[in-house]
Structure formats: structure tokens, C-alpha cells
């Protein structure tokens, strides 16, 4: 049984180390230092924050101008 527990804790530790390592990689390459930028990376010049990008067919962005930029917060 001792060996079982050793193995279990061993794998937990190995696993923890690998996770920390991957996190370290992410930090080293700047993937954690710019959350704002990462969060905004899904937007484009022509699909900026503040603009809805999905509508029922026929509604379109011209359907309700209040849904465009500046209408919230």
C-alpha cells in the first residue's frame, strides 16, 4: 500500500510540475502579461468592440442601431 500512495503522490507532483512548467512557458512568452491585449485579440478593425456580430436573418445590424457601439456601459 505504501508503494501505491507513493505512486499516487508521485504522479500528483509530476503533474503539478508539468502544469507549472507550462504556465512558466506562457509567462515567459508574454501570454500572461497582456491579458487586456489577449482578451481583445478576437476583435478586428472592422469588427471592433461595441459591435454585435450576429443577428437573426433579416434583422441585420441596421435593424436596431441601439445595439451598435456606445449603447452600453
Amino acid at each position, binding site marked *: 500500500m505504501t508503494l501505491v500512495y507513493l505512486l*499516487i503522490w508521485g504522479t500528483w507532483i509530476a*503533474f*503539478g510540475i508539468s*502544469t507549472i512548467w*507550462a*504556465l512558466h512557458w*506562457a509567462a515567459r512568452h*508574454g*501570454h*500572461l502579461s*497582456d*491579458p*487586456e*491585449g*489577449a*482578451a*481583445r*485579440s*478576437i*476583435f*478586428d*478593425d*472592422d*469588427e*471592433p*468592440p*461595441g*459591435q*454585435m*456580430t*450576429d*443577428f*437573426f*436573418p*433579416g*434583422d*441585420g*445590424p*441596421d*435593424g*436596431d*442601431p441601439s*445595439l*451598435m*457601439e*456606445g449603447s*452600453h*456601459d
Partner: protein
Amino acid sequence: MTDDSPPPTSDSSASSAPMPEGSPDQESSPRDMVDRARIDASCRGPVLFFFLTAAAWLLIGSALALLASIKMHSPEFLSDTEWLTFGRVRPAHLNTVIYGWSSLAGMGVLFWLQARLSRAELRFQKLLYAVGILWNLAIAGGTVVLLTGRYLSIEWLEFPVWTAALLGLGFVAVMVTSLDTFRRRTHHHVYVSQWYLFGAVFWFPILYVLAHAMIHLGGATGVAQATANWWFAHNVLGIWFTPIGLAAAYYFIPKVIGRPIHSYYLSLLGFWTLALFYNWAGTHHLIGGPLPVWLTTVGTVASMMMFIPVITVAINHHMTMIGHFQKLKFSPTLRFIVFGAMSYTVVSFQGSLMSLRIVNETSHFTHYTVAHAHLGMYAFFTMVLFGSIYYIAPRLTGREWASARLIKIHFWSVAVGMIMYFTGLSWGGWRQGEQMNHDTMPFLDIVAELMPYFWSRSVAGILMTVGHIAFAILLWKMWRGEGQKRLRARKLEQQQEGPTLLARPEEDS
């Protein structure tokens, strides 16, 4: 984290001056728009193929589900045909919806998301078609085997070895394609969705191969086989469907409403804690079973730790949505995905609690667990898939969906159906568990008490199936190009010389 940066001017004239139908918008189309169109075009063939065949499996899976559900309250229904007996249609339902619908559609979403977030075209179209065809054939063959009974009763692993081998091959191709797209990315930032997608494409194929090796090649024996079984079955949810579903939710919610996600840090914390704990949770399916207690305790502890990633996701999704709920009215994608994201929070909390011995004592072995499973696979994952497909498919074809009414029929029938399914079976299942734990209550009386809940499940199932038919019709029409041309596709057409990207005939790009 507000969206207070001045919006770029390129495309925002729509708010002040509605673009007249059909007239060209004379602004220059921005490079981003062309890039997106090019990347979408590279996904079109294979991703549409995955979506269409997935929808076909959804219909087959729904039919099998209805059959199984009806047999629960009317056991004489079609009972003289051996291959339609409950013990055959039940695993056939599970495997068609898991590997047919959920995995195929999930992979379609995965390819598209990875390409869009890497800002790189999807390559290997021919390989992906081949993988898609292979998957479909493997699942079709496997389902026939399930219905004819040549399978082993190992839940979630019933498919014969050759089906599993073909599916495994497909997973490898998915892994390679995804890595290739990511490697050619033209964008510095790695978005949180990509972390999740990476989790899915690397964890799951390994899990799949290891589990099959242990079970079919005789690696595990006796009770160890049961632990391998549930280690796998729970991880199908945890490290295949959940990451894909969360990747989609993390992209589509902010993208559709036009607001960056509430806390990017939290989203990464959520990913890593999920990676740490979900793997270990599976043995809670065997609480009280013939196993050493430490094994199931590991499962319980990991399940409780899952509160961390779940809370981070819940906070993020809710805080991003807050103040934007009116947008649900306008966006089909948002409706489905927000429904899914909320269900994710509920199902995860519920799941963690169900791993506690005090709750498990009642909920184990009952229909309460069935309700829980559908809350995860359907209310969360399938709804997210629906939402994603509503966003992706029009961008692949350059067409709008053919009918807003059908989308609404789809949404409301599956939403009402699912809520009915869940409340009915949870209530009935919990009672079933309580009555089972009163040893004075005869078993057949418990069965009699369950009957109304079984009926409610069949009614709910019919509602959901109606929604699936509406969805399949829409997808069919989309493929046939019956919807209106999208505004953006028209704009692109006006500005490109010669044939536009979206109208380009379907060759390998």
C-alpha cells in the same frame, strides 16, 4: 475592462446610415475582413461536411432516444424485434449522439475556431474529408454492431475494436490539423479558447487510445477494468467535450456582443485548474462499489476541486454578459450559447455535489443521474454547438440562414424540451433514490411511481426532436445556398476583381 476605445470607422457607418439593401457600400473593405473571408473559405468544405453529417446523426440519435424513452413506460412497444430491444437502442443512442453528433459537430467547431483564432487558413482539406467520411462509416458500422448485439457492455466503450481504431485514427488527424493551423498562426496572442482547444485535441486522443488498450487488449482485469471504464467515460466529458464547449463559449459570447471577456486572468486560471482536477474525477461513478475506498475518494476530492474552474467560468461568462442580456433577442448564436454557458455552471455544481457520499447515496443508480448527464451533454454542450453552428455556417457559405422563424422554433422547442426533461427526471429520479433507500417500499411500487416522469421524458424528447428537425432543415437549406446573401459577402464581391473569395468554386485552396 470596458469597451471605451473609440470604434474604428471602417464599418461602423451602419449605425448612422443604414445600408440600403443591395447597394454597394463604397468604403474600402478592410484587410481584416478579407482575411477572415479567406480563412472562412478555407474551412468551408470540410467544416460544412462535418456539420451536415453531425446533424444527420443527431436525428438518428434522437429517434433512438425516443424509442428508448417510450420503452421505459410502454415496455411492449416494438418489443418483439430483438435489435430494437431497450438494451440495444440505449447504447446505440449514446454512441450515435456522442461520436456521431457531438464529436463530429464539435470537431467542425474546433477546426473553424482554431483557424480563426490563429488567423491562419485551414489546410489538409482532402485529409479532413477523408477523416469525416471515415468517421461516418465507422460510426454507421459500429451502430449496426450495437443494434445486432455483438458488443461488450462497457458503458461509453461499446463500439467494437475496429470502429474504435478507425475513430482513433481520425483523432490523430484532428490533432495534426489543429497543430498545423496553430503553428502557422499570424497573430501573437494565444486566446484562451486556444488553450482549451489544445487541451481537447491532445488529451482526448491519448485518453481514447489508452482506455481502449486497457479494456480491449486485456490490460486491465476485473474491477480495474471498471475504474478504467469510468476514468474514460467521465473524461470524454471532461477533456473532450467540455474544453471544446468552453472554447466556443469563450469566443462567441464576447465576439457576438462585442465586449472583451470580463477577466482574462480568471479564464486562464479556470483552464489550468480544470486540467489539474477533471482527470481525476471519474471514479465517483463507482462510489459504494466493489473498490477500495481510496479510489472513489480521489474522485470525490477531484470533483470538489472542480468548483474552482467552474466558478471562474461562471463569473467570466456572467460578468461579460451583464448589461447585454437584451442582445439575446437579436442573436441566435447568443441565445444558444448563453443557455449552454448557464447550464455548464449548473451541471458542474450539481456534478460536484453528486460526488459527495451523502448525495450519491440517493442519486446513484437513479434517473437523477440520467437528467444530470443530459444537462451536461445537451443543455451545455449541444446548445453551445447549435449556437456555434449558427455563427459559423453563414460565414462559410456567405449566406444568411433561410428562416428566422425556424431558428426560433428550434430554440424554443429544445429549450423548453430540455428544461422539462431535466426537471421531470431530476424530481422523479431523486424520489426514486429516496424510495429505494426505504427498504420497506417494494421495488415495483417505485417503478409505478416513476411512470409519470417517464412519460414527461418522452414528451420532452418529442419537443427536442422537433427542434432538431427544424435545425436539420435549416442546415440543409444553408448547404443548398437558399438563404439571402450576407451583407459582407456582397461587399466583398463588389470590391474584389473577378470571382470573390466566397464565390470561388470549391477547390482546395
